[in-house]
């Protein structure tokens, strides 16, 4: 995908305290693209989102949307639609009034609100109060409210974290379909890899305030740019020292191997099966090596039993420099 720079973050930095700094972050988003900002809690995801929305002002750097420099613009004039983590629906207004909130001064806000509600499958809900709705419905009202003024950029803060786990997967698919149908450029923040992979055309991994890697889900999984990305995205065995050398690592480097890249063989790295966790199609085995390292191996459910002495061979391995402090 070629980035035409519909949204540009250029060396954006925000200092919270002597020890906590976000950025410098640079990111380009193409028109209509969905970028998922993925990172552990405290990595600065929400700060990046709030900088884009205009709730925080950066200490350095430049933010542009559609070629317009919005770095110093107040939120009201940025034309970014935001869906808050807890939705922030106005409790004193009904659903219709909530959705029409951003339509002040436009022709026939009521009709437009109705249209957007239909888009999120909530036609006829205008007169309900937010507290009368289920969590999923509230989320869709929040989405409708953000979309109604036809913003240039949609910002989603942990859009699914407030939903029942049973609801999440379906909502995720619906959300993705809706965004693509509207065709709006979207940045969403999440700490769940599955969510980021499912929703994002590209995923940006944030680590301690810096972007470690921006790429497609396949890129991140197959070709992680750092030890952090390798371990944060997907399951990974991290090995150092003697065990690493047996599997083809070198001194001073960290070796990472995915569970599915390890298999039981007649020779190789010897170990003892300590645990077996059955998941249906496959099983995960905990194998302890002579040096006390524990490796996770994914394999056929019938491949080994607890207490078996086994040998491991590795397929593709990755090596990294030690993580930065």
């Amino acid at each position, binding site marked *: 995908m070629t980035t035409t720079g519909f949204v540009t973050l250029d060396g954006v930095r925000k200092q919270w305290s002597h020890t906590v700094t976000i950025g410098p972050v640079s990111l380009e988003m193409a028109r209509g693209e969905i970028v998922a900002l993925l990172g552990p809690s405290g990595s600065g995801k929400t700060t990046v989102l709030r900088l884009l929305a*205009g*709730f925080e002002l950066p200490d350095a750097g430049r933010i542009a949307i559609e070629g317009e420099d919005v770095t110093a613009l107040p939120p009201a004039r940025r034309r970014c*639609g935001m869906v808050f983590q807890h939705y*922030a629906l106005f*409790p004193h*207004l009904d659903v219709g009034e909530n959705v029409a*909130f*951003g339509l002040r001064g436009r022709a026939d806000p009521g009709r437009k609100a109705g249209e957007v509600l239909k888009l999120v499958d909530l036609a006829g809900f205008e007169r309900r109060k937010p507290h009368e709705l289920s969590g999923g419905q509230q989320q869709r009202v929040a989405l409708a409210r953000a979309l109604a003024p036809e913003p240039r950029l949609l910002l989603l803060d942990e859009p699914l974290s407030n939903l029942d786990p049973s609801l999440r997967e379906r909502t995720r698919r619906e959300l993705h379909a809706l965004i693509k149908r509207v065709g709006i450029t979207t940045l969403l923040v999440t700490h769940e890899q599955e969510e980021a992979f499912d929703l994002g055309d590209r995923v940006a991994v944030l680590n301690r305030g810096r972007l470690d890697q921006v790429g497609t889900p396949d890129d991140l999984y197959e070709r992680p740019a750092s030890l952090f990305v390798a371990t944060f995205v997907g399951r990974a065995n991290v090995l150092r020292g003697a065990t690493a050398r047996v599997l083809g690592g070198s001194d001073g480097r960290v070796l990472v191997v995915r569970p599915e890249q390890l298999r039981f063989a007649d020779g190789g790295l010897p170990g003892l099966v300590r645990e077996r966790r059955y998941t249906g199609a496959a099983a995960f085995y905990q194998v302890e090596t002579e040096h006390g390292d524990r490796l996770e191996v994914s394999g056929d459910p019938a491949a080994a039993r607890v207490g078996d002495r086994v040998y491991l061979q590795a397929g593709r391995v990755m090596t990294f420099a030690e993580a930065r402090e």
Partner: protein
Amino acid sequence: MSGSRRALAPRAALTLLLAWLAVYPMLVVIAEAASSDAVGAFVARPGEWGALWASVWISLASVALAAAVGIPLAFLFEWLEFPGRKTLGSLIALPAVLPPFVGVIAFLFLYGESGFAARAVQAVLGLERAPWRLQGASAILLVHGYSMYVYFYLLTRAGLAQLDESLIEAAQALGAGRWQTLWRVTLPLLRPALAGAALLVFMTALGSFSAPYVFGGGFRVMTTQIVATKLNGELPLAMVETVALALVAVAGLVVLRRTEGDDLLTALGRGTAPRRRPIRRPGVRRLATAAGWLLAVLLLLPHLTLAVVSLVPYGSWTTEAVPPVLSLVNYRRLFGEPERLRPLVNSLWMAGLSTLAAVALALAAGALVGRRRPARFRGPIESLIVLPWAIPGTVFAVALAATFSVYSPFTLRWILVGTVVLLPLAYLVRSLPVTGRAVLAAYRQLDPALEEAAASLGAGRWGVFRRVTLPSLRPALAAGASLAFVAALGDFVTSIVLYTYDNRPISIEIMSSLRVSELGVAAAFGVILMVVSALVLGLGARR
């Protein structure tokens, strides 16, 4: 955001304004008291020490009395289930709608020397004279107990409702009996609520003026002593007395705050409150119900008395046990003669204006320092807003009178004594704690995401405030404003020191009516005050 530095000037200005309103008059009084030789006179006269001591012990006794009535009632209504519990539970808070002075005259009409109760006993026993006189310390304590147990009742109930049942069950599982559980778990968990109620009662009793003024007779407490001294023209001595009472108030505040502990205790219990247990034995249940209704009648009697007396035409009730004639003549006269209606109009505009100003100041404080993120000047502004609560009404009234009886613009003093603005100004300052606390608490609960959502949807600063912030604050604003309005409407303590003929409020008119024995008119004013107060409070409590 960058707003914090820009808002420094308005914050400093608000701090100064509040300091001028709430602290400056107190400083003036302290300075003038210290510079006169009245301190010597105060120390030398045994009467002064007597009044000060009376204030303290009456207040402590009021706390004990209110606790003895309020706490058991709270347990009864929160823990047990019996027919009529809900209705009774809300009836029981009724003394709260009676403004202090109106409550006092209702007691006078009911239990006073020539009140209903005394006449009834006299008639039944065929006595020559009234069987008792309602006077002195016991009369004051009776009124205090009646009007102040509500604090203990309401706060204890709130505390009990927050209690986590699993804590009690845990104690029982560990082998504690019912009394042991109460003593070692329940009561310690209630400590913040109980200490809070004790503080409220102590401060209210210390500043109480109406009851000692009407029933005290020769028994003086500091509030009545101050007013008497001032009316005697011994101004410097009155200032010293004022400072002495203020010091006692501050000492009480500090001591009681210390016992309050922190919110940790209640924060810990985050489960469900214990379920109410129905009283099983039918005999006991009937007894509880009967006792409950008897109590309700007892609590309602003063209100009822007031209503009846307001229907008694002037001079028509002499020695009979019950009034022989009832008519609406008092009300007709009240609304028919403009000069008689004046006090009502006065009270309404003064209470309305002072409430409006107090709400505006509270909103300004909330907007400047109320949000959850740290802000400069927050500490000073919050303390200044609640400070007037710790100052007895009489003290503050005398301080205002002293401050604004001098023309000295450079020290921010003008002559306001004798003008109509001084009394509403006093109401305003005394309203600040209740409006301020309500608004600041509501601001703290405000979800910042709501305002951010509005901003990102294109609303400007004013639009966000008008369309999102203000509607979210509405319940707190209504509650705070209604309480402030009702307090100002029924005020007697500050009014008696600061009123002029042109702005004489209802309470003062009630007093003058009593002086000329127009009991019916006084009661009619009392009823109007009671009804308006109840209406406004009801309106303010609506969600």
